[in-house]
């Protein structure tokens, strides 16, 4: 049961990573690319972490959650800064 959950969640996360990467490569401008990337950061990584939780002891699980939270924090800030600098420079 736990294994099945892991497989499903990690696979879903991997699909999001793939989609996000495609978006990064194919989208036309910086803002839409950022849009694609943030999905990978939030949901993709979140699903992978969530899926792995049942396989881990509580200490390792806490570490995984901490990783996810830190990525959330830095991802949000960096995306903001990038988006602002794009708008500031008037690039499309």
């Amino acid at each position, binding site marked *: 049961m736990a294994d099945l959950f892991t497989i499903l969640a990690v696979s879903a996360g991997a699909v999001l990573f793939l989609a996000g990467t495609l978006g990064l490569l194919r989208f036309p401008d910086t803002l839409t690319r950022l849009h694609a990337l943030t999905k990978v950061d939030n949901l993709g990584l979140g699903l992978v972490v969530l899926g792995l939780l049942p396989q881990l002891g509580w200490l390792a699980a806490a570490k995984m959650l901490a990783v996810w939270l*830190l990525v959330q*924090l*830095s991802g949000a*800030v960096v995306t*903001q*800064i990038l988006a*602002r600098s794009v708008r500031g420079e008037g690039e499309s």
Partner: protein
Amino acid sequence: MMETGFDVVLALMLLGVGGWSIIARNMMTAVIIFIAYGLLLSLAWVRLHAVDVSLTEAAIGSGATGLLMVIAAHKVAGDSQRVVRLSRGFHVLAAVFATLVAIGIASLAFVLPGAPVSLAAPVLERLPESGLGNPVAGVLFVYRSFDTLLEKVVLLLALIGVWALARDQDWGGVPGLRLFQHPHSVLMLLARTLPPIGFVFAIYMTWAGADVPGGAFQGGTVLAAMWILVMVAGVRRVPRVSSPLLRLAIVAGPLVFLAIGFLGFVAPGVFLAYPDGLAKPLIVVMEVALTLSIAVILGLLIAGPPRAKDSA
């Protein structure tokens, strides 16, 4: 089978990404690809069962080196257009030569002696005397601590080398880390929330380094990253290079290292040998001091030579 497949993909990606960073036209692109390459490389180090190296590669080889090169690429961006175009024949010749070099080195894999040599057993055999659990830390701080001591002197010299490039009238000013001209509210948020976490993490890495992968260098790099973040965001002022407190932080690690080295002359009678039973506590003291110095030196190396006192 699965693992071999992973290794093959990883090796190919290393070559592909590494090659891309060489042929990329735009310098900023090349540098950013190089950072990605560094992260792939730290994966390769894990696959080679060298977790300590992997952490160092991610922190220094990719992180700190990458940051330095991003700053450089940003400032010299205008140069790239003026690159002289070399003839096609020259490129082909260079490619042929490089291929021959690669093939030559690759073929050396087959001439190394069949029975691998290793110091793993002797390292482990005498490791308990020091109380350390991490054999790599044992090599760095017990068997070959002389190398490690000199490496710290090399870092001091790197700082002297960077500071040498200040203009005389700017000397005594603050290092010129100025990526953002105006306070940036979102960055401020990060610079206020992240450092406490990073600080705890850095202490953990240093502390744990005696027994599991980690250590002063990795911890120091995390600390340096926090300091740079705080400086870039403008939360704290960058200290003047002549500030006595800053100087003390720079030399604290090497000073403690040297002092413990000389202590060896007194207690067991040999330079850089530890007195009976005191090896581990002394090494921990040394690592704490080194973490501080490494963090400050790395931060200052990235910040660059001091600039004019008034230009903010």
